[in-house]
C-alpha cells in the first residue's frame, strides 16, 4: 500500500504546483477563491436580483387579476389575465437560468417544476372534475405551473375560454384550480426571490463570496445551471417538437410538445431565455456593460480555432438571436409548415451548447456535474 500512497502523494504535489501555476496566470481574478468577485457581484446584483424581482411582481399581479376574474369572469378581465400571464411567463424566461443555484435549487417543491411542459391536460381535466387534489404530488407534476395556466387560460375546450369559467358545469371547480395553480406559482416565486434579497435570506451575498472554481462554488453552480437551462432550450423547446431528440434520430414532428402551446408565444419565450443566457455571458444588461462570464474567459486567454474563445461565443450568441428572431410564432404551426428556420436555430443552439458546456467550462476549470440521464 505504501507505493500507492506514494503515487497519490506525488499527484498531490504536482497538483499543488499546477494550481499555483494556474493561479499565477490570473492574479487579478478572484476565481482562485476567497474574498468577493466583481463578476459574481455584477451578475448577482444587476442580473439575477432584477430577474427575480420582475418575476415576483408579474406573478403577484397575475394572481391578483385571477382573484378578481374569478369573482365575476368577463371578457375584459380574461383578456387582462391573459396579458398578465404572458408577462409572467416571459419573466420566468430570465429567471430559469438560476434553477440550479442556491434558493431555487433547494426550494421544495422543485422550483423548476413551475415550467414542466408539455402539460398533461387529461390530469388537469380530471382534477377539476374531482375537485380534490394536491397539485404538488408527483402525479400532478405536469398539471401545474405556467404550462397549466397556458392551458387553462387559452384552450377553449370546444366552446370559448370564457364559457369554461361561466357556463360550463365545472366552471366553479375550474376557477378554483386556476386560483390554486396561480397561488402556488406566486408562493414559490416569492420564497425564492426573498431568499436572494439582501433584506431577506441575502443569498446574493453568499453568491458573491462563494468564489473559486469548485463544483460547489457559485461559478460552478451558475455554469452548470446555465448549461442545463440552455439544454432545455435546445432539447425541450426545439429538439423534441422538431423530432430531433434524442440527437441523430428522425422522429415525427410533435407540435404539442412546444412551450406555451396554447398561448402560441413559444418563440417569444425562447428568445427572451436565449437573451437572458447571453446577458449572463456578456454582462450586458440594457445599456450598461458590466462584467459577465466573458471576463473570466478573456482573463484565462482561452483560445478557439486560433482566435479568442470569447469572441467565438459572442458571435454564436448573436447569430442564435438573429436566427431565433427569424422563426414566426406560433412555433407549433411553423414547424409543420416551414420547419427550416427552427431547424437552423436548433443547429445554432447545438453549437452554443458545445461552446458553453465544453470549451468554456474546461478553460475555467469548471466541472459539469449534471448527468445526461441516458439510461446507461
Amino acid at each position: 500500500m505504501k507505493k500507492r500512497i506514494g503515487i497519490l502523494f506525488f499527484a498531490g504535489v504536482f497538483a499543488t504546483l499546477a494550481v499555483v501555476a494556474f493561479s499565477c496566470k490570473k492574479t487579478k481574478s478572484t476565481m482562485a477563491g476567497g474574498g468577493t468577485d466583481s463578476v459574481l457581484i455584477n451578475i448577482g446584483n444587476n442580473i439575477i436580483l432584477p430577474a427575480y424581482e420582475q418575476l415576483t411582481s408579474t406573478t403577484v399581479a397575475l394572481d391578483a387579476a385571477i382573484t378578481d376574474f374569478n369573482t365575476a369572469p368577463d371578457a375584459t378581465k380574461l383578456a387582462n389575465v391573459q396579458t398578465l400571464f404572458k408577462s409572467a411567463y416571459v419573466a420566468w424566461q430570465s429567471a430559469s437560468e438560476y434553477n440550479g443555484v442556491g434558493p431555487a435549487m433547494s426550494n421544495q417543491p422543485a422550483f423548476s417544476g413551475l415550467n414542466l411542459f408539455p402539460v398533461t391536460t387529461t390530469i388537469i381535466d380530471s382534477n377539476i372534475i374531482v375537485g380534490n387534489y394536491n397539485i404538488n404530488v408527483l402525479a400532478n407534476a405536469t398539471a401545474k405551473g405556467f404550462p397549466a395556466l397556458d392551458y387553462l387560460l387559452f384552450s377553449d375546450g370546444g366552446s370559448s375560454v370564457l364559457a369554461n369559467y361561466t357556463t360550463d358545469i365545472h366552471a366553479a371547480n375550474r376557477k378554483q384550480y386556476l386560483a390554486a395553480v396561480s397561488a402556488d406559482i406566486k408562493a414559490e416565486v416569492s420564497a425564492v426571490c426573498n431568499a436572494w434579497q439582501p433584506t431577506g435570506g441575502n443569498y446574493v451575498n453568499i453568491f458573491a463570496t462563494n468564489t473559486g472554481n469548485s463544483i460547489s462554488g457559485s461559478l460552478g453552480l451558475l455554469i452548470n445551471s446555465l448549461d442545463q437551462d440552455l439544454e432545455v432550450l435546445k432539447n425541450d423547446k426545439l429538439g423534441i417538437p422538431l423530432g430531433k431528440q434524442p440527437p441523430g434520430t428522425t422522429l415525427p414532428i410533435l407540435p404539442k410538445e412546444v412551450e406555451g402551446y396554447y398561448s402560441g408565444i413559444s418563440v417569444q419565450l425562447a428568445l427572451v431565455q436565449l437573451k437572458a443566457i447571453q446577458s449572463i455571458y456578456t454582462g450586458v444588461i440594457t445599456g450598461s456593460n458590466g462584467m459577465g462570464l466573458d471576463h473570466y474567459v478573456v482573463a484565462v486567454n482561452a483560445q478557439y480555432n486560433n482566435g479568442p474563445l470569447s469572441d467565438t461565443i459572442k458571435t454564436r450568441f448573436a447569430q442564435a438571436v438573429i436566427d431565433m428572431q427569424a422563426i414566426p410564432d406560433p412555433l407549433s404551426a411553423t414547424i409543420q409548415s416551414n420547419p427550416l428556420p427552427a431547424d437552423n436555430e436548433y443547429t445554432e443552439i447545438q453549437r452554443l451548447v458545445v461552446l458553453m458546456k465544453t470549451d468554456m467550462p474546461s478553460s475555467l476549470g469548471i466541472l459539469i456535474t449534471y448527468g445526461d440521464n441516458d439510461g446507461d
Partner: protein
Amino acid sequence: MYILEISFAVHKRTQTIKSMKKHYCIFITLSTIIFFGSCKKDKNTTTTPVTPVTYTVPTTYNFTNVNYNNQKMLLAMADQIVAKVNLANTIPNTVVVAQTLKDMFNNVNNHFNDSAYNLNTSGLKLADYCSATAQADLMNYFDSIGVYSQSTTSASEGVAGVSASSASPTKKYLLSPSGIFYSQLIKKTIMGGICAYEIANVYMADSIGAGIDNNTVVAGSGTALEHYWDEAFGFFGVPIDFPTNVSGLKYFGSYSNQVNAGFSSNSILMNAFLIGRAAISNKDLTTEQTQAAIIVTTFDQLDAAAIVQEMKETDENIEAGDAVAAYGTLSEALGFVRSLKYNTSATRIITSAQIAQLEALFDSTNPDVPNLYNFVNAGGSTASEIEAKTDAIRQLIGHIYNFNSTQLAAM
C-alpha cells in the same frame, strides 16, 4: 476534483520504474520531480550490488502481445442480449422469448447477429464468465421479460406494460407489475455479475495468483499472467487511450467516467491497469499485486458510486415529473445494489448486513422483491418526499464507503 484532473494530465507522461532484487524503489519521474517510495535499507545487498532493472509504463494500453478478443466478443454478446431485451420497450408491444435470451447467454442455436466476430461459432458463452448467483438472477430476469413482454397495456401498479417517459416521449419502458424496468436490471447484472465479477473476483484473485506462468511467451497473447491481466482489462470497457479518449465507453468504463468527478476512478483504474501490466512484463510481481488490490477495491467503490449516480438521475427524473423514467433509474440502482452481493472479495467494503439495509431503503416491506410503486408513490408523494428516500440511499453509501458530501454530489 479538478485538481486531480490536472495531475492526471501530467501523470500520463512516461513513468519509469526501477526494480531491484529483494527490495523495491519506485521512482516515478515527471519533469524534475522524483518520488522515492518504500525504500528500505537492505543490509544484505551492501556486498553484492545489483544492477537495477528499469522499465517504462506506457501512457496507453499498448503492450507487446496484448489480446483480449474474447472479452470484446463477450461484451458484443452482452450488447446483443440487451438489444434483444430492449425490443420489449416498444408500443405496440414486442414479445421477447425467455428461451431465446437463455440460448444467447449459453450461445446455443445461433441467435447472434454475426459480424466480424463470428460469435455463434466462437465457442464462447457468457455463462462461463458469470457469477453463479448472478446467473441464477439473470435466468429469473429472462423469465420475467418473457412473461411481461406479452402485455399489451400500459404500465400501472400491479399491471405489467409499456409506458413512455413524460420528459422524453420517445423513450419507452416495459415495467413489471412492481415497476421494475428489467432491461436495465439485466444490463446492470451483466456489469456486476460478469464484468466486475470477472475482474475483481476471478482475474485479480485466482488468475494472477502465485503459480501462474509468467515465463513462457505465446505469440500474440504473451505469458499466461500477461494474458489474464489483459483479459481483465478487456472487461473494463474502455479504449486503450482512456481516459484521454472517452469515446466508445461501455459498461463500467462508462460508469467510471460518469462518477469520475466524485472519486477519480478513471485515472485510478487506468493507472493501475497500466502499471500492473508493465510490472508483469518486467517480472515485478510485488507491484503487480499492489495494482491488483487497487483494482479490486476500486471496482467495489465504483459499483457503490454508480448507485449514488443513479440516485442523482432519479432526482432529476422526479423533478422533471417523470415517474416512468424514475422507475428506470431506480431499477438501474437496484441492479448495482444486487451486484454488490456478487462481489465475494475479502476486501469488499460493504457487509452483507449493510446490503440488506440498502435493499430495505428501496422497499422496507419487500426488500427482496421491491415494489418501486411504493418508493415513488406518485399519487401521494411530493418530489421532496421522494428525494428524501433517494437521499437516504445516497447517505448510507457515503457512510459505508466514506464518500464525503462533495464527492457524493459529484457522482
